[in-house]
């Protein structure tokens, strides 16, 4: 009888499984443990995390570390993944020709056209001729401004609309003899050119502007020639869907959407090398990658962000494996298109526009990490023999096979933070395995950038917790539309906010996005990376590349804990008619602890074979 522990050091988590091996050689599992991995996988920095998980697991089993007869470490898959994103377009407003920030409480409604005048010029007696649009900086208290405008109207000045710096649009409009349209919260109102023809439009609540988002509408308001109408197209396009907007007829003003050169990537294949520009988008990048297969290495254009990221990953792997740089190769790339909110250049009101961006995940793998060193150092530290217990892909499969209802032939999809891995076991054959770029971290980066969040950990929380909207101080509406009522009032800082429903309570998200927008971004990020890679993995490891020939597929790794991802995968794979589900290691641990459990199973099996 002996007591052994299997320890799985992952990129993200370190897990343990404790088992008593009886005289008949079969394992009786006693406990499990899990903690955050310390340091980069495959280095002696992992040891504090290993010690912690051993303490946790032995305590749960009611024993001491000194009672252990053996510790088995995974021959960790030497995979390092990284991810970066580059914006490839930008919007530039020239000559302050439009305002499109969509303030929440514009004043009045309707359309007004006229020449822009500063409100001080209405104070000073000499009234301007013709229709005017009044510009009101925040030095003018709304009551003072309203008074000036009311008197001007009475004196016959044709005030048509206003552009206001403060949040006073409704206040000013309410104090005029008839309500006029006012666009407010215009931060840099001093940039509004004076003496120019301008149009202001405010739609009724719940609607969007119709004239300023239509080039012929602008043409009607400004009496433009067909030639001039061509130039206002990008302005009209930028104002689509907004409740209020301003267009100013400056001589050369317009709105430009430019491509930003973000660098190129070179795919070095066995037969040919191909280069592709990042700003041409994910489809072209992935097509170029496909043409360059089989892939030997990837290089990024030096001096660019992407080039820097690729070289960083190469260097890290070289350090960890103590191999020369030239022997460290990038073996897979995943490119994803996304849309990120960026501040408009030249905007008058701190407008944001949605720009295109390309996200890139890369993955390096080698044959072996220096796990023996980790094993030796660990063994010295804890005074227990430590051995390497098996290749990770094999042990993951063995752990997955402890799921009720599953049998060989079996394939697993192992979703972690840095890479998406797959393995397949057919009876009597060696295990097939593959590692692909793009996994949990890429999903989080997509969420972060598409929502314009500042912090990665906030995006990570959004990834793994469902959403709710706080509708009153006493109830919330979950994203599935169910309503939950609370007896004690919620905190004021939660009121009307989108929140995450976590085990520790409701956590507000600092965002202007609606719940539905956040949910769509979250689900699309998972779809574009994890569902896609799940299928790529299965194609790689299935017999003849035909997924239909796989019988059982199980998802392992913490991505199997995701509250929606397994279902998305199952839906996507259902046309193939195979059994797909989340593993249930040892019938109780779900997708976690597969490798740690598999290390024990593998040990017993080898002892069995030996006897």
């Amino acid at each position, binding site marked *: 009888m002996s007591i052994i522990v299997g320890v799985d050091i992952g990129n993200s988590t370190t897990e343990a499984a404790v088992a008593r091996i009886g005289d008949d050689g079969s394992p009786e599992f006693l406990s499990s443990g899990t903690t955050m991995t310390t340091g980069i996988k495959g280095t002696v920095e992992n040891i504090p995390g290993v010690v912690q998980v051993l303490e946790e697991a032995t305590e749960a089993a009611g024993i001491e570390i000194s009672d252990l007869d053996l510790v088995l470490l995974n021959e960790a898959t030497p995979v390092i993944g990284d991810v970066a994103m580059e914006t490839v377009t930008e919007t530039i407003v020239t000559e302050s020709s439009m305002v499109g920030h969509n303030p929440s409480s514009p004043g009045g409604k309707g359309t007004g056209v006229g020449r822009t005048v500063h409100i001080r010029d209405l104070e000073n007696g000499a009234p301007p001729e013709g229709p005017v649009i009044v510009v009101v900086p925040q030095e003018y208290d709304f009551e003072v401004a309203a008074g000036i405008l009311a008197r001007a109207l009475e004196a016959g000045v044709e005030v048509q609309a206003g552009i206001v710096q403060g949040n006073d649009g409704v206040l000013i409009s309410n104090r005029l003899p008839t309500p006029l349209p006012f666009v407010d919260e215009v931060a840099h109102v001093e940039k509004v050119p004076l003496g120019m023809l301008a149009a202001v439009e405010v739609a009724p609540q719940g609607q969007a502007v119709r004239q300023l988002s239509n080039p012929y509408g602008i043409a009607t308001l400004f009496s433009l020639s067909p030639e001039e109408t061509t130039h206002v197209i990008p302005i009209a396009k930028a104002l689509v869907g907004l409740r209020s907007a301003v267009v100013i007829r400056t001589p050369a003003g317009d709105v430009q959407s430019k491509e930003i050169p973000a660098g190129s990537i070179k795919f070095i294949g066995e037969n040919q090398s191909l280069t592709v520009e990042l700003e041409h988008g994910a489809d072209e990048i992935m097509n170029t990658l496909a043409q360059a297969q089989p892939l030997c290495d990837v290089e990024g254009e030096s001096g660019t962000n992407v080039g820097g990221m690729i070289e960083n990953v190469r260097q890290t792997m070289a350090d960890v494996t103590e191999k020369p740089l030239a022997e460290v190769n990038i073996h897979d790339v995943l490119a994803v298109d996304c849309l990120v909110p960026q501040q408009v250049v030249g905007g008058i009101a701190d407008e944001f526009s949605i720009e295109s961006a390309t996200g890139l995940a890369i993955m390096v793998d080698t044959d072996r990490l220096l796990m023996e060193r980790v094993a030796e150092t660990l063994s010295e530290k804890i005074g227990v023999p430590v051995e390497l217990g098996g290749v990770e892909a094999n042990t993951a499969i063995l752990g997955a096979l402890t799921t009720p209802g599953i049998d060989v032939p079996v394939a697993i999809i192992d979703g972690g933070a840095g890479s998406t891995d797959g393995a397949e076991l057919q009876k009597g054959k060696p295990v097939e395995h593959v590692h692909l770029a793009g996994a949990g971290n890429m999903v989080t980066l997509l969420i972060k950038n598409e929502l314009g969040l500042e912090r990665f950990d906030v995006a990570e929380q959004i990834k793994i917790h469902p959403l709710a909207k706080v509708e009153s101080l006493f109830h919330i509406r979950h994203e599935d539309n169910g309503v939950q*009522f609370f*007896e004690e009032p919620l905190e004021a800082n939660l009121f009307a906010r989108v929140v995450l429903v976590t085990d520790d309570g409701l956590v507000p998200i600092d965002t202007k996005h609606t719940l539905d927008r956040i949910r769509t971004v979250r689900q699309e990020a998972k779809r574009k990376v994890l569902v896609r890679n799940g299928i790529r993995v299965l194609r790689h490891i299935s017999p003849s590349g035909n997924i239909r020939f796989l019988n059982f597929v199980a998802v392992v790794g913490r991505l199997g804990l995701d509250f929606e991802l397994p279902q998305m995968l199952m839906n996507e794979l259902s046309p193939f008619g195979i059994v797909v589900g989340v593993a249930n290691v040892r019938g109780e641990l779900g997708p976690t602890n597969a490798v740690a459990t598999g290390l024990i199973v593998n040990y017993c099996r080898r002892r069995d074979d030996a006897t």
Partner: protein
Amino acid sequence: MPAAGRRNVTPDEPERPAIHVALGNEADERLYGRVAVGAEEEGIPCRLVPEEGSDAVALAFSAAGSSRLGVGVGVASGRVAVHERHMPAGRPVVATEAGDRAEDACRQAGSNAARLVIGVPLWLLQER
């Protein structure tokens, strides 16, 4: 934070927000229980409050006024009304006959009162 509704209110928890229910002078006391289960299934607790009167709408409005949730139910003179304190006093949100099928009508009123609290469409199959 515990979800509400597991049990009816006990007298020593006057602060607990609840739908207030007022019965008219001659209304059957068991009807309070029916209102309460209608609300309980939706997850909101009720509290029986002492009020005088025989007009279901006025009772409901008064009950809504004292309820921290702002929702009240009144049962009297063969009618059951659901009221909300923001409404004009004479305009209950729902008012139905509670004659022959008084128990069902009261359970539905309790369900509607809870739905007012949590924001779910109301049962409106019977005449107002």
